[in-house]
């Protein structure tokens, strides 16, 4: 721990100002608008108006229902998979790890369009079912479609968190239970379940928030009677003055913070510290023949489901005509040609916005990590907390907040802020900052402070120490943070839809949405989607490589 110098204070103040301007104030504006009347006084009238509209009550119920059902189905998919990987010895583990990543590299709303063609009313599955058995399954009808698409997209959150917490359970705990005469379901209920629960709750609450706030998927599936689409519709068609839109935003924020706060409280309260860690890993049983059949069957079925949006998107991007048939009839590369002819600007914009946003994130992340872990600056934890709150902020709310707060703000060279490229960079960076910060914190906590002390003993200044010692040593974590910020921003749609004021400013995610709104555009939209998925997939793969290859004990190069 080092002294607090004016430089440190200045950096901390700058970061605080940034967070205040682009996170706290916009959200506060939204909340203020929801609670204020025309003269600026306090009122609950907008909330009572909201409650008086049956459509709003219905949307509220639907959003809760969809989020709840998605958590349920995501758990049904993920729990058996997590248990299998951690507790059994078999070769499917690699497949399951892949399963955990595949859905996340495709933005949910992109998959939705392709799933319509596979599972929709006259989709491949229903055509086959109708042909053979004479019935169809309404998988994609109304709310079902949203639940189905979101489940396939978000179940990895449950899977990854639960697998991690199952893997952490010390065998000795179970052995102790067995020694005391417990076995079977009782052992599971008394020992395994409570120990694994924090991981599950963390994953499930994340799924709940993400689904509750999602805008793109319901819009692509034509579902409007949910909260996020209603807020979007009110604000875009009635205008930024419509108070109901802000009421919905407040509800989204409250639920997101409650879900996240609740899960933390739960994890904190129930976090059973396990004394002996490492050494003994969980017992991995061999599968019996029938268990193996069941396990591989389940994994195969889930893999097929998980791959279906990817496959559907690829087929759509290559098909000339796909109408009322199980598979497309004619194939073409023309859609990719169209995209490269008309929409290279969108691909460029995605790189620009997400690149700058990710850069900003790792700069801020590194600085905050340093302030929190290496200085005794009073109130430094506050920065960390503020960033963490961003994790619970729905993109829609931040987007509306930006439009409202920065309306009429003109910048030199850039022009109106809300109609400029800068607004995307800011919005993307604020919401991805928590990911980058976690990454940077982890990296910095693995750098031993004695290295910095050694440098300072040799007479290096604080700045020199940071740039020559700390940052190079953290580079693995910084890079990983950069990539995570970049890929999650590339697939973002909620803020993007709201903030895109002109086509030339649109990033790829908006382009996909826009293309998907016309008949001749379905193919190019899918082609752009394929490009986005490949980009995000590559990024994710690189970040895994970086994290895997850069262990904290690596010797850094001369210059990073």
């Amino acid at each position, binding site marked *: 721990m080092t002294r607090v110098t004016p430089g440190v204070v200045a950096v901390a103040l700058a970061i605080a100002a940034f967070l205040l301007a682009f996170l706290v104030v916009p959200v506060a504006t939204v909340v203020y608008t929801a609670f204020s*009347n*025309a003269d600026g006084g306090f009122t609950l*009238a907008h909330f009572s*108006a909201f409650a*008086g*509209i*049956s*459509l709003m009550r*219905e949307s509220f119920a639907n959003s809760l229902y969809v989020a709840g059902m998605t958590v349920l189905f995501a758990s049904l998919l993920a729990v058996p998979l997590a248990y299998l990987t951690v507790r059994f010895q078999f070769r499917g583990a690699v497949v399951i790890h892949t399963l955990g990543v595949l859905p996340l590299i495709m933005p949910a709303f992109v998959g939705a369009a392709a799933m*319509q*063609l596979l599972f*929709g*009313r*006259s*989709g491949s599955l229903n055509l086959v079912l109708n042909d053979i058995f004479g019935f169809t399954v309404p998988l994609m009808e*109304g709310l079902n479609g949203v639940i189905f698409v979101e489940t396939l997209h978000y179940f990895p959150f449950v899977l990854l968190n639960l697998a991690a917490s199952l893997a952490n359970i010390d065998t000795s705990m179970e052995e102790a239970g067995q020694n005391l005469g417990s076995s079977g379901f009782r052992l599971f209920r008394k020992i395994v379940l409570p120990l694994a629960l924090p991981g599950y709750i963390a994953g499930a609450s994340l799924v709940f928030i993400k689904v509750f706030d999602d805008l793109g998927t319901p*819009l692509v599936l*034509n*579902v*409007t*009677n949910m909260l996020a689409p209603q807020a979007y*519709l009110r604000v*875009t*068609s*009635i*205008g*930024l*003055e419509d108070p109901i839109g802000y009421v919905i935003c407040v509800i989204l924020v409250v639920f997101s913070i409650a879900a996240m706060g609740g899960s933390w409280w739960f994890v904190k309260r129930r976090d059973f510290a396990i004394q002996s860690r490492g050494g003994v890993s969980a017992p991995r049983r061999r599968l019996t023949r029938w268990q193996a059949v069941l396990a591989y069957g389940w994994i195969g079925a889930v893999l097929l489901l998980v791959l279906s949006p990817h496959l559907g998107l690829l087929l759509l991007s290559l098909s000339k*005509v*796909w*109408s*009322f*048939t199980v598979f497309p009839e004619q194939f073409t590369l023309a859609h990719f040609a169209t995209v490269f002819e*008309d929409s290279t600007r969108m691909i460029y914009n995605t790189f*620009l916005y997400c690149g*700058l946003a990710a*850069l*900003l994130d*790792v*700069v801020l992340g590194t600085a905050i990590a340093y302030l929190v872990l290496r200085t005794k600056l009073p109130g430094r934890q506050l920065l960390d907390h503020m960033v963490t709150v961003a994790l619970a902020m729905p993109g829609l709310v931040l987007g509306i907040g930006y439009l409202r707060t920065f309306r009429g703000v003109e910048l030199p*060279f*850039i*022009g109106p802020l809300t*109609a*400029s*490229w800068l607004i995307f960079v800011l919005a993307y960076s604020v919401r991805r900052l928590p990911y980058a910060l976690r990454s940077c914190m982890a990296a910095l906590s693995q750098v031993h402070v004695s290295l910095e002390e050694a440098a300072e003993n040799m007479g290096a200044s604080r700045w020199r120490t940071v*740039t020559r010692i700390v940052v190079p040593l953290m580079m693995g974590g910084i890079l990983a943070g950069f990539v995570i910020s970049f890929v999650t921003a590339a697939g973002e749609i909620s803020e993007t839809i709201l903030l895109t*004021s*002109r*086509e*030339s400013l649109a990033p790829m995610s908006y382009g996909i949405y*826009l*293309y998907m*709104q*016309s*008949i*001749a*555009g*379905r193919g*190019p939209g899918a082609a752009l989607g394929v490009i986005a998925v490949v980009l995000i997939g590559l990024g994710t793969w690189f970040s895994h490589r970086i994290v895997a290859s850069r262990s904290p004990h690596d010797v850094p190069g001369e210059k990073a």
Partner: protein
Amino acid sequence: MLASRIAFAAALLAPALALADTVTVVTSFPKELTAAYKKAYEAKHPGDKLEILNKNTAAGIAYVREQPVGSRPEVFWASAPDAFEVLSSAKLLQKVDSGNPAIPDKVGSYPINDPDGLYKGQALAGYGIMWNTRYLAANKLPTPKEWADLAKPVYFSHVAVSSPSRSGTTHLTVETILQGEGWNKGWAQLLAISGNSAAITERSFGVPDGVSNGQFGIGLVIDFFGLAAKNSGMPVEFVYPSVTAIVPANIALVAGAKSPEGGKRFIQFALSEEGQMLLLQKDISRLPVMPTIYAKAPAGYPNPFSGSIQAKVNFDTELSESRYYVVVALFDQMITFRHKELAQATKAIWDAEKRLGGKASPQLDEARKLTFTPVVDDKQIADKALLALFKADKKDEAASKQKAKVEEEWASKAKANYARAVELANGAK
């Protein structure tokens, strides 16, 4: 070090992003069309940059209204004439004097250009029925010809429509039916068609898209969606029913725009022979307003100037504009948001009809009446106070409250009617 890199990157990129001489066009038109115009226009006027803001009509109006004078977009370009009425009555449009003399004043009896010169017809559009031939064959459905056909039991769950609140073109279709058939009969038809619908889609694109990929059998669409899909090889057909109106899709210069001269240049281009020819492109398939263009169109291309489309309805824009907000709100409260209940009531009625085999039944008549009667009748819609209430300023808190109350009344009445109709139809003897 990193900070200076950001600054450097920003400095490098800023000039590429801040463009001079930009013509901004707010439009609801699909990307194929805007991309073709952008390319052709920028080739012709290399100094200008065409900037497209793709928004549906309602959001487009809201956007123009919210921009301060001086930073508004230059051009508004959309299908729905009433959108232009809304804009011109809000004094958001500016007169354009020049035009193309080869464009006639009228198509049929409908004026192509705004009499006050605030907006000009750029293309013509009719409304019609589009269907997927494979879907109809697979479900053994007859080919529809008129709106009334779609209100028949055989089409239950095979139709798709959009909501007028989200799509200006759908509002035109709805208003055309209401004007062509009269308020009460028109709503009866609309309610039955919507009851037969599998979905009320979020944007008007959702209908032609669903029909072309076979999700829906039949859809109510603006002609170019049907024609463009057909011309790009989809197994679909399109027909103009007799209750249709040929209405211009307009283009207008927005008042208080950044560069009005650029806006005028683009409007001039869109009305020129070059701009009109672009409309014939396969994936655009729109009807030009310049009659001589049709000589260069492929065989069988519909021509509204030659009488190949029968348009019985003389669209009354003023009437449409005066009740715009009420029609839109009414449609949403009775149909969009209560679609599940409406479809259940419709199904119950069709089932009862089948069961009774044409036998008269007072319960069934009552059920029909409850389901297919608008909650606002033709006398109430003529009420000036109601129309004024829906046009009131959003900031007027008392008016918004009153409006919300009225909407809520419609919604609960519609819901109760549908529920009662299901009971009656199920018990009909």
